[in-house]
């Protein structure tokens, strides 16, 4: 949950405050929990909502540009230099997304929640989660340089950086 809060808010102090709010809120609401969902999902939902509340409050305040590297996540000591660089690049790219796109992408692609779980946590339709993830991934593909012609966003990608062989495909993942 610390990772979710940190990746959503990108600021350790805010992430800590959000976790604190969330756990206190969960503690107070414990008696009303009806076991309709797993307790971890319920808690994650509360944590994510606490983070989203902070995001909204932050958006209402005058913008303070994040530092270039951002506090982000502290690098784990065992990371190699290249892994750290990749991590920083991906974190920075995530920062380019709007909150509407970043939060579902963090939950689905980074944290590994299903679309259905993410929709429940965010209180939005599954289709909305999918389309926000789609928009966000398309932007990330450009920002991260996976697409060779990132300016061609209106129509055809002028080719793409193919990092591995592409098998013939028939259906999307739709997690």
């Amino acid at each position, binding site marked *: 949950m610390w990772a979710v809060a940190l990746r959503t808010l990108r600021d350790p102090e805010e992430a800590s405050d959000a*976790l604190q709010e969330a756990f206190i809120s*969960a503690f107070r609401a414990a*008696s009303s929990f009806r076991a309709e969902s797993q307790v971890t999902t319920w808690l994650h939902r509360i944590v994510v909502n606490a983070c989203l509340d902070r995001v909204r409050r932050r958006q209402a305040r005058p913008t303070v540009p994040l530092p270039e590297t951002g506090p982000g996540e502290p690098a*784990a000591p065992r990371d190699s230099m290249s892994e750290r660089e*990749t991590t920083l690049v991906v974190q920075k790219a995530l920062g380019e997304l709007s909150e509407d796109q970043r939060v579902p992408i963090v939950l689905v692609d*980074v944290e590994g929640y299903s679309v259905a779980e993410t929709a429940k946590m965010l209180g939005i339709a599954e289709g909305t989660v999918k389309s926000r993830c789609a928009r966000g991934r398309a932007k990330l*593909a450009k920002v991260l340089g996976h697409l060779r012609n990132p300016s061609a966003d209106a129509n055809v*990608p002028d080719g*793409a950086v193919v990092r591995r062989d592409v098998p013939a495909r028939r259906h999307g993942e739709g997690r």
Partner: protein
Amino acid sequence: MTDSRRTGAAPRPPLSVDVLADLHAGALDAKQSAALWAQVNRDPEAQAALAALDGVRQDLKALGDRPVEPMPAHFAAQLDAAIAAEAAKSRPAQPGMAPVVDMAGARRKRNRRMGWAAGILTTAAAAVAVTFVALPGEEAGSPVAQDGATTGETAPMEIEPEDLGASISGLQGKKDYGPLGDEQGLKDCLAEHDIETTQVIGVREVMMSGNEGVAALLAGGEGAHRLRLVIVDPECTTVLTNKSLG
């Protein structure tokens, strides 16, 4: 593209990255999706764009797979203190203090609440994992930065010796060292009584059983306890309380 999506018809080539991203994410309806996959499987550029989207997901998954440093100790201590304070507040009332009409019902309700609360505490503990790990470069005993931390503006707080846990919320984040002056004064005072100051979560002047004192909430108690409450008299000649909590 937007028009074709609205009408339900499959977009014609060339396909935009946005349409391919929708297809990739499973955001299109079955009919559109089937028609598009047929196109994509004949279109190397579209396949390359899908591979790029796969690459994005791989990068994001790698970020998620990467081990995350535990929550910094001072944040974890704040979280522990807040949860402990909340737990102290929700403790069932002492017998005779509140009328209970339906004892069985009240007990069921309390047990349910305490059961879930225990679960939340367990999950919270798991969430913050190795709580008091000293991180490299982190100065032991560094003050906890916190909104609302105050200095010298709080009146002495009443502390009940029988209910020390209830004082946690009133101490958390306070930086009122009173006659001890500052954090160093507190450390010196506690050192005189062989009490190691790990990390100060909150400190303020208090009244306990009619005696003045300075209470300090510290990170790290004995055994499984995560907090320590120490109360000394204003001259730091006597330790009035030294108890592990939380």
